[in-house]
């Protein structure tokens, strides 16, 4: 498969602050790539650099085999959808859709043909003569997507397109975007800080922090095998439980004060040496309540029912951690339960480098 977008050794500075540092990223043809990270991680900057809306300080950007590093945004075969919709308030929906084509002096019959096609696909035909202010949030975002469609963009760029919508609408449009990608097969680059969006939409996710890509992998891989502490902590809701302790090589176990957790079932990539400081991480759903008597005893300190699941809070050597149980479980505050850790699915990090071991 060919690369649709290649970012090579990209650097971008704002004043003296380095926003992006020597960043490389290849996006395959037809791939849905999500750039995920907390605010200020450089994901939107990267997207703006790809779009040509920011001038980079060093590096290259190649779209569809074309070196567009110094090209105008309009010559980059891209369409872009913004968080604030960015519809021109003074123009009708139709004029909004056709603005780009009119700017490039496209013949009228071709414009109306393209608008027909796009509005059909997005089911906004009956809205064509309205002004953006007369549309609902969801409709506006459809029009914004339509603008990218009309341009025959090879690559779609999405800049947190769903952040301004309420939860229900967000789920609806997420589904629509995924369907659109399935039907059109275009390359899509999607910036978000919402991990659910990232997990549901992406072929691959690039998790970013401080201008660097922390991990670039499929959603499954990122969730199950986070490559460092940051990714492990950022992905997953409720988030992963962490315990800091030492590695005991004689018993191949994790020790926290007097408690020991046997790590025989864990597949180390790099085995730490004796007495190394390590962080033991485990997701709430990888802890189970055991019926038998072998395992550790805990008292329930807090219960958070979430409908489908129930989260219960316990503490291990004074460090609170959560366990995800079925919504139907009927524990009460103060109950004592016995739990097991699924060590196979745990993640272990070096405390100093914060990398996965």
């Amino acid at each position, binding site marked *: 498969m060919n690369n649709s977008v290649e970012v090579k050794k990209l650097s971008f500075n704002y*004043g003296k602050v380095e926003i992006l540092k020597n960043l490389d990223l290849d996006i395959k043809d037809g791939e849905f790539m999500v750039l995920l990270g907390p605010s200020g991680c450089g994901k939107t900057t990267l997207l703006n650099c790809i779009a040509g*809306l*920011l*001038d980079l300080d060093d590096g290259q950007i190649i779209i569809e085999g074309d070196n567009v590093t*110094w090209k105008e945004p309009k010559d980059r075969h891209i369409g872009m959808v913004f968080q604030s919709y960015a519809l021109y308030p003074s123009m009708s929906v139709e004029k909004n859709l056709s603005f780009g084509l009119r700017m490039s002096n496209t013949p009228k019959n071709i414009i109306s043909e393209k608008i027909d096609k796009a509005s059909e696909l997005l089911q906004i035909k009956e809205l064509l003569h309205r002004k953006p202010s007369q549309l609902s949030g969801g409709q506006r975002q459809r029009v914004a997507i339509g603008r990218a469609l009309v341009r025959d963009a090879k690559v779609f760029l999405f800049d947190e397109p769903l952040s301004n919508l309420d939860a229900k609408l967000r789920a609806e449009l997420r589904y629509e975007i995924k369907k659109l990608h399935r039907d059109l097969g275009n390359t899509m680059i999607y910036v978000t800080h919402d991990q659910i969006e990232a997990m549901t939409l992406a072929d691959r996710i690039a998790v970013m922090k401080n201008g660097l890509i922390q991990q670039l992998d499929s959603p499954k891989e990122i969730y199950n095998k986070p490559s460092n502490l940051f990714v492990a902590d950022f992905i997953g809701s409720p988030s992963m439980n962490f315990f800091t302790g030492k590695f005991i090589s004689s018993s191949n176990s994790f020790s926290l004060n007097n408690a020991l957790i046997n790590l025989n079932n864990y597949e180390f990539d790099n085995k730490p040496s004796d007495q190394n400081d390590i962080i033991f991480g485990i997701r709430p759903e990888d802890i189970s309540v055991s019926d038998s008597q072998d395992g550790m005893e805990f008292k329930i300190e807090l219960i958070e029912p979430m409908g489908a699941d129930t989260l219960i809070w316990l503490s291990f050597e004074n460090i609170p951690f959560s366990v995800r149980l079925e919504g139907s479980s009927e524990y009460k505050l103060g109950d004592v339960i016995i739990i097991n850790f699924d060590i196979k699915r745990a993640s272990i990090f070096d405390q100093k480098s914060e990398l996965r071991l």
Partner: protein
Amino acid sequence: MFFKRNLGAKIALLPMIIISLTVFVGCIIYSFVYSLTNSKLIPVFNYVGFDQYERLFKTRKWDVAVENIFIYGIVFTIGCLVIGFLLAVLIDQKIRAESLFRTIFLYPYAMSFVVTGLVWKWVLNPTFGIEHSMHLWGFTWFELDWLVNRDLAIYAVCIAAVWQGAGFVMVLMLAGLRGIDEDIWKSLSIEGIPKWKSYIFVILPMIRPMVITSLVLIAAGVVKVYDLILALTSGGPGYSTTTPAMYVMENFFSRANLGQAFAASIIMFISVVCILAPWAYYEFYFRNREAKV
């Protein structure tokens, strides 16, 4: 958001750049250079060092002008801020006929300084004005002879100026007050803090940016005061209400003493810079800090 390939913007900003350099910077340099000469009717470059400045500081009339601008600056600034804020607070009380009151307080701002000066000259006229009315009503002890009183005439100027400018400050402050989050008011009322205390200790600090903007706009107006005094007192009685601006204009256009006028104008300029520097530093410093975040 910036683009390096933007010829259009550079061309568009060319007039601004040229004007900034030739008029704003160029004129200051020109005035300064010729303030070092003894030019009379036409500017000639006959270098005399800082003689003009020395003469300026020895001139009694200039002393009076400086004293007047200080009095005017302080009274006018404080008057506008206090009255403007007070009016804004009153208007903010969900009163009836709000827009009527707002219009009444703002309309003087639409008047020319010349008009303001002439109207107040008439109202304060010692023979036919308010004083006369009061006497007709039997308050024979009432005196309002400010316009003919050397010590008080400058305060008459201040009243007229505050009357004209307070409404504008009110609009600015009101914009600030309306920008206050409704939740702040809710929490203040739940905590049972009296309204006047809320305004002074909570709201006023919150609209500080608006207060500073008002202050800067007022201060910029202070040094420019010329037409108002010309219309109201013509600088009199005697030269008791003369200001630096009048002193400069007189030397430029009626006394043909260019060197002296340039020197006085440069001193005016330096005073403005001294007043603005702390504000500019503050703005610049904080803008920079914001940019880094």
